[in-house]
């Protein structure tokens, strides 16, 4: 059977043709294709990795953002609470201060009124005393225009003085 005996001519041509085609394709054919496709695969892989990274970063950012928002909200409520407190305190302070001030003013006014009253009373007393002295002078002058009157008056004075020297019963 010539089926299983390799023919020399066919071997020869096969080696030559296959060899030439292999050489040409090894130089200009397959490496071009595989290099390009490998380059593309590498790029796709890198892009996927980058995308994953970005996604992870985005997720981290989102968490961070949420945290910041939460913090800001907490701070806001804290500030509001403090403001309310401060307001209440200021109002209360103002109220007490006003009361104190009013009390002080009242006290001062009272004192002044007292003083005014005192001085007014003193003036009145002085006036009254002066009037009394003048009246007394006039009365005395009237009464003492005669000798007997002078004597009687003196006696009376002595009596009174002696009476006032004694302690009150």
């Amino acid at each position, binding site marked *: 059977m*010539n089926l299983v005996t390799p023919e020399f001519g066919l071997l020869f041509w096969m080696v030559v043709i296959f060899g030439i085609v292999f050489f040409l394709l090894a130089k200009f054919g397959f490496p071009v*294709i595989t290099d390009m496709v490998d380059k593309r695969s590498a790029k796709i892989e890198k892009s996927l990795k980058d995308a994953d990274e970005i996604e992870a970063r985005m997720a981290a950012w989102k968490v961070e953002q949420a945290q910041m928002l939460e913090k800001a909200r907490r701070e806001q409520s804290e500030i509001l609470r403090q403001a309310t407190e401060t307001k209440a305190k200021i109002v209360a302070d103002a109220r007490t201060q006003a009361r104190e001030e009013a009390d002080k003013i009242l006290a001062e006014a009272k004192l002044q009124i007292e003083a005014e009253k005192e001085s007014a009373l003193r003036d009145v007393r002085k006036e009254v005393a002066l009037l009394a002295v003048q009246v007394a002078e006039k009365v005395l002058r009237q009464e003492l225009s005669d000798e007997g009157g002078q004597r009687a008056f003196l006696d009376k004075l002595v009596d009174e003085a002696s009476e006032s020297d004694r302690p009150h019963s």
Partner: protein
Amino acid sequence: MILAFLISLFLQTAAIQPASVMPGSDRASETPDQVGGDDIDVAEIIFEHIGDEYEWHITEWKGKPIAIPLPCIVIDDGVHVFTAHHAEENGYTFNENGKLINAATGKRPIDISITKNVLSIMMSSLLLLIVILFTARWYKKHDVMQEAPTGLAAAVEPLVMMVHDIAKENIGPDYRRFSTYLCMAFLWILLNNFLGIIPFFPGGANLTGNIAITLVLALFTFFTVNLHGTKHYYKEIFNPDVPVFLKPIMPVIEVFSAFMKPVSLTIRLFANMLAGHIMILSMVCVIFIMAKYGPLLGGGMTVVSVLFGVFLDALECLVAFIQAYVFTMLSSIYIGLARAHED
């Protein structure tokens, strides 16, 4: 299927005794050394189709064969070039296998004729060359980062990358040096397997079912493997880590195994493709054999034959791919073994 095949075999043997005179097939009368004029010699037809010829017989037209004449080139006492029709004038004749022999001495000269198979190698290799170079041109002209491959490149890229990935998986870090050879072997075998299924010109040559072709392919793998073997690979062959009493035997076994690898590659591809061709041709022959037994049986068997023929053709398409894949896969594994390093 087996049953149908047995039936066809039975009918082939039965056909040797001529039952009746029928128009016969166009094939039956085309070869001059046909024995019985109206009888069908199935073996003859099949061997003509799977074998090699000095001309490319295409068809028959009004009793005259239409064939492409091919140059016979022989080196004997000098180079002689002629066509098969003029062999006698140049002092050559044909032996019982249809090969050229020197008419005077009866010896085979060095015969490097451009036969049907050689022409087929040329055409398919040229086709492969054009396809791959055009694809490569696409990749040079376009920016792969921006656009997906179209047309030819889109068709070739998956195949090339499949082989590239096989190489990557089986060979290791320096797989790039070898992926080119594997791509070449895979695409060449695949292309020729499919061209072999096409029953008319420019297909129909039984290339991958020819032992010379598969032997060359296997030898390419063999040399790729053994010329790139690492120190570790050769140490495993000639001085493996085995008990002392095995030391003298192991190198013999290993060397034998190294040589058996290309042989198995050769036979596997050759036998698979040849068997496929023979099965399909047998199915076709059944039609012509059965034509003798009247219109009823002939017509009935024709339907069966065509159905099985379609089935076998579909199977062959599958086998065409699988065998190309297996050859490439095994080659890459052998290369991978030869590129092994000490672990």
